[in-house]
């Protein structure tokens, strides 16, 4: 069972997380201007490398944040786990 180091909550058992798949899937920013091929690639194609895999997990029983991990899918070694990049919206008050 994996031990995932949530950047917020610390090292936690995998049972606290739910899996979200390939982290490199990017939703086309303007779907309506996207052709069928690009759109269905987005819907159905995933990285499936036999090695380091960038993937999303949600800390569903913890801070509920979606996280980005790099995990070796053969050894299951997790080499990084970080928060998703967040836009800087200076919501000051």
């Amino acid at each position, binding site marked *: *069972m994996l031990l995932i180091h949530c950047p917020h909550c610390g090292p936690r058992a995998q049972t606290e997380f739910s899996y979200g798949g390939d982290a490199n899937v990017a939703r086309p920013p303007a779907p309506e201007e996207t052709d069928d091929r690009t759109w269905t690639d987005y819907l159905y194609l995933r990285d499936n490398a036999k090695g380091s895999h960038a993937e999303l997990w949600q800390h569903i029983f913890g801070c509920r944040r979606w996280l980005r991990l790099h995990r070796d899918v053969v050894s299951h070694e997790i080499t990084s786990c970080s928060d998703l990049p967040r836009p800087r919206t200076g919501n000051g008050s």
Partner: protein
Amino acid sequence: MSLGSFRLDSGGLIDRGRKISFTFDDRIYHGYHGDTLASALLANGVRLVGRSFKYHRPRGIYGLGSEEPNALVRLRQGARAEPNIRATQIELYDGLVAHSQNNWPSLRWDISSTLGLFSRFLPAGFYYKTFMWPGKFWPYYENFIRHMAGMGRSPEAPDPDRYEKRHGNCDVLIIGGGPAGLAAALSAAKGGALVWLADEGARLGGRCLGDGNETVRETIATLASLENVTVLRRTTVFGKYDDHLYGLLEHTGDHLASPARGMPRQRLWHLRTKQAVLASGAIERPLVFANNDRPGVMLTTAVLHYLRAYAVRSGKRAVINTSNDSAYRAAQILAAHGIEIAAIVDHRPGTKRRDMPGVEILPGHAVIDTSGGRDLTGVTIARLAGNGDTVRGSERRLDCDLLCLSGGFTPCVHLYSQAGGKLTYRQDIQSLVPQSDVPGMLVVGAAAGEFGGDEFAGGEAAMGRPISLSKSRRKQFIDLQNDVTAADVELAAREGYRSVEHVKRYTTLGMGTDQGKTSNLNGIAALASALDKPLADVGITTYRPPYTPVTIGALAGREIGVFLAPTRRTPMQDCHEKAGAVFTPAGLWQRPHYYPRPGETATDAVNREVLAVRRNVAVVDVSTLGRIDLHGPDVVEFLDRIYINGFNTLAVGMCRYGVMLRDDGMIFDDGTVARMSETQFIMTTTTANAGPVMAHLEYYLQVVWPELRVHLTSITDQWAVAAVAGPRSRDLLDSLDSSIAFASQAMPHMAWRAGHIGGIPAQVFRISFSGELAYEIAVPADHGHALWELLLATGGGFDVIPYGTEALTTLRTEKGHFVMGPEADGRATPGDMGLRAMLSAKKDFVGRRSLRLPGLAPAGRLNLVGLIPVDGGSSIPAGGILLQSQVAGPLPDKAGHVTTSVFSASLDKPIALAMVRDGRQRLGEELWAHSPLDGRIIAVTITDPVFIDPKGERLRA
């Protein structure tokens, strides 16, 4: 035989003050506290303890612990009976009951042992080659094969014992409490680390058990005194999992007749450690020759172990068959304890041996056969020629009742291999040993092939061939449990099953409950010689958890009975129970299905409930629907992107029905959304989808559109919600003490208001699923019970009744509302449901782009429609398939299927919803609803799905 003839007068770790009686195969025997069943049986001179798997050969005690292949018994009785337990690991307790297995009518006279006579026709894999003709007969053949299957009998009653699970954390986990593990524990503990040490035995000491080793004794005492050391005895480390998680099975109650009150029988640990030390020792390897399986044939370490730990002589006159030096020291000890040594038969021609007075030592010899029936009476030995074959004419018989096998030691590398460690072959000890460290695991002691200076280990002394294969037709067993012989391995190789994995599967070598602990290496050696390859090139089969079998009850832990999965309760659950509701599962909830009155059938009750809604007023608990609080400056934008319809025009104080899709264009969920303020909305979801919708929203918010500022809070549990429905619902509410004006002008359809009802703070939403005038009343959960009682109080002349989900189904079917599941089954688009008009043209939303894919184009898709029986009265089969014709040809073209079928009490006739290909263009057409499962074919007419009040006048009333 009386107690004592095999038992020494003194010594051993048993408590002679505590005599214990037990039964084996219904005969009473005695032993001492501290005995195992195996040691006690041996002490009583019981040598035949079981029958083998395939040939039902008589078998005795062979080993000393978890490597035991033979002595599997059924332990305990009644609901506590368990099959296939190793006698070597059963600690004796008073009143213990054990039975032998795999025999009929008795252990001594086992009919199936005659199978051995036909064994030449039952070689490895024989079943693949026969039983094929005539094809019809296979079930009978198979019945016979199944009859022969299995070792023990499965228990038949539910387990009375309790199993516990536990999570633990430590710095260093030491696996094995032999000298190596103890030393490792001590040094780790001295460094201050939090150390756990687990050993599957009842006592620490490993191979040194009972040998009087002072260092070991002191170390055990020191460890016991250290606060940072936790010692788990009777605890098997059975598996190594990712990120240094180990599975441990602690036998907390197995050494007792039954676990103490409140104590679990076994405890399954999930232990996370930083570092593990594998000190699991080594298992002695047998030698292979004809009839090497009789009771009385034992591993030398086992014989020693019974002598030193239990003061039991395993026999009176022993022959030692060895290929390494360790046997000599063993022989001395045996002799010192009164076991006569008939001879030491050493495979090595020029062994640098030491003399033992009175013992015949035969270098360059091997045992090649044994004699005896159900017990060993003697062995045949022969001289070995240079090539390893036996020299003809050199055969000689030696009388003995004990044959000690000593073919070297095989390190226990199971957990290392599970961790992905690679093995390498070491010629000097003729074993596979760890090649290099794996991260987080250190292998030490005998497990690492470090037999040290120990005189038992055989050290650098060259061994003979691990097995000697005489060309004998008699059976030479490699895997004693599964009755796999050297000939089977040869046959597999001859037939082309040459990979070690093929040999395993073809012969079943190593696939028994011992997983080949004593046989795998000999199997490899046999294969190497059959293929004429170096042993190192043969490879080894994969090691897998568990190290020894793990009780299914322990794996399940307390996840049994009601704790298999959580059960959720609404604040009104008590009321439903009191009202005698029949429940139906909805996700983790139990929702009232209907509320039968005495004497009523289910149908009666549902019809009554439906009519109450249509004609009067009734109440349903909808607290299970998911509720999500959304707030933030971008909440409107967010909802617009999530739902197919728009929300920016929704006024504060109003609600709107919304449908959301997955990005592949399929309907994902639906529900109403209420605008609480400029920047706050409350969304409702379907009961089953509450969790997935929340995760879906969080995904889009955090991953796809992180720039949107919206907070999501699940508030399902904050509210108790009752829907009051029916033409008199407003009258009912008006009759209550409330601050809210329910009249249509004040509160039109799809409005919501806050206030209080009967002194309870409430939010009331005028929304309707049933199509009647209806209000959903949400109150803080702690007041749900009071609200329900208030609504159902029959005062005021309203004959209010509660209704359940079955009536709800009928009501929504009458209104043509689809639901997630039957209609929106994950393959339906909004267009399929007739919701094209809802699709906003002004904005993008999740799933929109997919609707333009060719496969989602409207033509040819299944549409939501209604059905009525042509004859007006026949019920429409639920789950029926719609065909064009009454007669279904082979592979007919399907027009669609019935999704929900009900009897409409309101219309007094059966109706149904269905998904029909291009259905909306086919209103009025006739189809046939086929339900071959119950032999029904009903003619139906396609109708609009809305059966009642198509204009929605009732709900706007």
